[in-house]
């Protein structure tokens, strides 16, 4: 009987170790999201995401590190919601139409601000969804001409519902 032994490559062990360290240090993606079939994904990296429809409805995700030694000081979710609402109020032309409590795909509680804006006699829709974790601030905004946005509203809502906060 020929005894065979499987020799483990030292490189494989090193890869496992590196992956473990990679995950442990949080160097992986800050979010995850599923792009609907009627949208094209233009960008996806650790901190940003962009997708759009063929007729100009755009969804954008941005993740900002917050807390000590981060670009943004740490603050509670309510602070960021108030700050966002106030900034849109100062930027003339945006009417706050609704404010909703939402949940990410992984159950994280967030807030959605719904704005309307008229530009050149055309109505536009603009949503801002915020999730706040201990280390990150997630801002997902979506918008476009109202009639086009309403046409793909289900897709936009599905995309936002698939958003995972990490």
């Amino acid at each position, binding site marked *: 009987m020929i005894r065979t032994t499987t020799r483990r490559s030292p490189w494989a062990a090193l890869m496992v170790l590196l992956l473990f360290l990679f995950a442990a240090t949080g160097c992986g993606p800050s979010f995850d999201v599923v792009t609907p079939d009627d949208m094209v994904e*233009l960008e996806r990296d650790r901190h940003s995401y962009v997708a759009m429809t063929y007729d100009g409805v755009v969804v954008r995700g941005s993740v900002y590190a917050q807390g000590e030694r981060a670009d943004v000081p740490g603050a509670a979710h309510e602070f960021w919601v108030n700050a966002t609402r106030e900034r849109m109020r*100062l*930027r003339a032309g945006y009417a706050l139409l609704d404010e909703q409590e939402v949940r990410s795909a992984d159950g994280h509680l967030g807030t959605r601000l719904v704005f309307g804006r008229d530009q050149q006699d055309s109505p536009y829709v*603009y949503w801002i969804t915020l999730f706040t974790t201990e280390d990150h601030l997630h801002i997902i905004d979506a*918008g476009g001409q109202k009639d086009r946005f309403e046409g793909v509203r289900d897709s936009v809502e599905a995309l936002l519902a698939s958003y995972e906060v990490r």
Partner: protein
Amino acid sequence: MGVALPRKMMWVLAVIALLVGCAAGPPSAEMAAAPEEVGDRVRLAEAHGVDDIRAEASPAQASGSSVSSPTAEPPETEAKSERGQLLIYTGSLVLAIYEVDETQERIVDAVEEMGGYVSERSSSQLTVRVPAELFRDAMAALSKMGDVLDTSWRAQDVTEEVRDLEIRLRNARQLRDRLEGLLEEAETVADALEIERELERVTLEIERILGQLDSFEDRIAYSTIEVSFRPIEIDEVPREDFMLPFTFFDQLGLESLMRVPRRYR
């Protein structure tokens, strides 16, 4: 075809014309005050609420000169003047204030408490009328409503003008009485029409003089103060102070969102 007037009538009309032409001349110190002139003076005095229509005034004031100074105070207007002068007081104030509407309301209240009223009002100016005897008090009270940037007052001596009007009024009334007497004695229609035309002219003249005297009476009885407002200049608080210093907020909005796909062209 004209109608020859009787010689007597022509002489009367000539005398009348001479009298009317001489009515505007300077008053004679030797002229005794006619009962109606005295009555007009009494009327003016009663409107003032003083025993005599006299006001104390310095020689500079009597000449109608203006005094403009942040610290100059208007004279007392209640004391009697030995010269019996009739004075119209006007003043102006430029105030630097914060809340224009609120300050205007306070001024209106103060003026109405003095028995005065607002004659004109705009967002930057108030024109008020106050009883002449309270002119100084009013100027002092209004000066406290804000920072005084400029103040001035003027006393206009209108004694001669009023006396001149009174004399013209007396003469016109006398003429009217004579014309009414002549009208009764008119022998022809032409004479009557001529006298009536003259009578109408004299009546209009009397009404005009009475209107001028009323105007003087009002301006003597109530002094005018113009109050102009200037907002106190303050440094404008920069709008950026109210915006959080996080640049990522600048990316919010449709303007930025709709431009994102261009990066991928």
